[in-house]
């Protein structure tokens, strides 16, 4: 509960509370890894259990998934630039790059929703089979995380506009950047172990 503030080092690490929040968030990400690992394991176990529904190889399309991957990976990069701008002390740079990041995230979501609707039209829904249940829940959980991240980032943008860079706002932005990179990492696993493998099998 100390309110002493360091005079140097990254802004977000200067208070003890800031350090604790960041550590706490890392631990939370550890829990998130377990959460996604469980979903991946479920997916792997139920792989091939498509019942009467179409096979993944018949539905997955390389084009659209590549665009989504490209968007999310780029957004992780722009998010990195945003933090870089924050470290330089530029609120304007930070907000600009953060907004670009969010637009890329929104684009990703748009494609994902389109994709889900498309599959549903082809007869693959949450209810069709164990395999498709696990697919939609795995990809959907990731998509839900992206959605929440976007909502959260918008709140932070408002706070940045109001308060500028303080130890508190910079800590919040730093934490959401960790979250965003994490979602990117999860997507890489979804891309390879769900889409790439799904397309060849």
């Amino acid at each position, binding site marked *: 509960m100390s*309110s002493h503030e360091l005079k140097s080092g990254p802004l977000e690490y200067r208070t*003890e509370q800031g350090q604790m929040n960041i550590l706490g968030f890392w631990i939370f990400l550890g829990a998130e890894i377990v*959460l996604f690992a469980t979903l991946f394991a*479920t997916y792997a176990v139920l792989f091939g*259990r498509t019942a009467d529904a179409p096979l993944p190889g018949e539905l997955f399309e390389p084009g659209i998934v590549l665009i989504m991957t490209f968007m999310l990976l780029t957004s992780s990069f722009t998010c990195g630039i945003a933090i870089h701008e924050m470290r330089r002390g530029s609120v304007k740079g930070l907000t600009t790059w953060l907004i670009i990041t969010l637009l890329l995230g929104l684009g990703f979501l748009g494609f994902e929703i389109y994709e889900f609707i498309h599959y549903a039209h082809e007869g693959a829904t*949450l209810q069709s089979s164990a395999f498709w249940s696990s697919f939609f829940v795995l990809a959907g959980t990731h998509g839900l995380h992206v959605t929440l991240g976007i909502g959260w980032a918008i*709140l932070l943008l408002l706070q940045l506009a109001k308060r500028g860079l303080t130890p508190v706002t910079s800590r919040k932005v730093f934490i959401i950047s960790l979250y965003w990179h994490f979602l990117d990492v999860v997507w890489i696993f979804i891309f390879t172990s769900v889409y790439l493998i799904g397309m060849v099998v």
Partner: protein
Amino acid sequence: MQLDEFFVTGEPLIYAGMVSIALVTAATIFILTYFKKWGWLWREWLTTVDHKKIGIMYLLSALAMLFRGGVDALMMRTQLAFPDMNFLNSQHYNEIFTTHGTVMIIFMAMPFLIGLMNVIVPLQIGARDVAFPYLNALSFWSFLFGAMLFNISFVIGGSPDAGWTSYTPLAGAAMSPGPGQNFYLLGLQLSGIGTLATGVNFMVTIIKMRAPGMKMFRMPIFTWSTLVTSFIIVFAFPILTVALALMTIDRIFGSQFFTLTGEGLPMMWANLFWMWGHPEVYIVILPAFGIFSEIIATFARKQLFGYKAMVWSMILIAGLSFLVWVHHFFTMGAGAFVNSVFSISTMLIAVPTGVKIFNWLATLYKSKIQFTVANLWALAFIPSFVIGGVTGVMLGMAAADYQFHNSYFLVAHFHYVLIAGTVFACFAGLVYWYPKMFGHKLNEKIGKLSFWFFLIGFHVCFFPQYFVGLDGMPRRVFTIIPEWMPLNVISTVGAFGMGIGFVIFVYNIYYSFRYSEREQTGDSWDGRTLEWATPTPVPFYNFATVPHIEDHDAFLDMKKKGKTTFEEDKLEPIHMPSNTGHPFIMMGIMFIASFGLVFEWLWMAIAGLIGVLIMMGIRSFDYDDGFHVEVDEIKRTERSARGL
């Protein structure tokens, strides 16, 4: 939906339950209004972020849940005492063993231990609160609302009846329609959020907030057990979250994870459940080990023997606890190889556990043991738990388990570890730390009476169950055959003995509140660790000055050197967090959302979830930075507390 579908009808016992709920609620409202206590309740408790008060609320709720689970248990034992009893019908029996198991593990054992952790851990490490006090309040309210959601099922909508393990396909929508099973899923989900947050909170607290000089290997052993437990929580609870979510989606939105149609895999549930479930049993036993270690060291008046071995064995147990889950279903048919692997990993756990047993014995060896009530519980734990552990190893032999599985032998085993381990530890810890929390000890005489009733009742109740299990009595049956009667009668008698022990325990709380001598010094038992360095009642900021730690058994060292936690010349203003009603409100809305989902009223669930999101937004814009306690006020508080 008709009103008579909403409320459970047709059972006199349940009508009695409804009446007593209505009476208790009315009485509470009346008392609060009559004595004008609503403001007090809100300011002092519902909005508090003080770890000590949150801990006390956890303990109170856990005691209430122990009562509820205990009543369930006595009803089951009554039904099983004689063949052809007509006390409970099969459906009601199913519901009761389900709620008994769930309430005891999720809403009694864990909250009891988390309550003790909340009160004690910050004090033991010289911190002024936990790392995230707001989150801590959130954890508590999520647990309490989750517990309430689960508990109202017996008067509204109907209780779950598929066992606390809730195996599919039985628990799926096809075979268990209606809200009952949803209560299980959402009650656990809601309180699970809080447990996960507690894990994160205590990890950060213990890693970051220790007093200067308190290295990891100088931490009190209960704090160590809390840290290790928090690790298990953080890595095990997300598995439960996913498992519950998948079954909820199966039941409410028609997916096919655990169904018999659409190529679903019912055994997937058993795997997911126990991948969380086995670590869970260590979540409730490791803190118990920590409590016993503290108590034994205090009352043997010796440093804990083999401190480092104790810590490493806990870490080893925590690691192994993730690698044994298949021993809960050796009979699934995974094959000899898989079963052998899990059989060996299961038996391996007995090694570090044995190390701990020998260390406790070595601590006691040649010491001047003080037979206080707290220590009696700890001493009784050692042999009783060994019986539970040894029979656990028997169960762990895959081939033999084909005989023992799902019999009363198993029931006896897990009660020997859960009661002699966890419940004894809860009682021991409560008695031991009671003066720190409430400023007076529990009466020792009455405490001993309650101890002996409970201990003897426990063995009389559960020891025969090993044998009736070997005689072939399966678990989860609502009626017995005449051959099993004698042992069952004995068992039921023992169960009521435990019930008497519990009643005496609760009476002791009342008696001691009235008649016990008030604490003067804060160091009730001539303690060794930092929590005893604070005055009693503990000031809300805990430590006026945080001592520099130079040894383990930090307080013993301070007493030798004449140091205190009140060094007047070193006082500085103390920063503390403000109270807030958010956590209570947020989790209240979450309760409404979950209730909607239980009845599959999606509009209500969605409205509730939007409400929760709004609360989170409000929290994000909340820049309240707490307040400072000024030096003058600290001086005044400490002087009066220490009688200077």
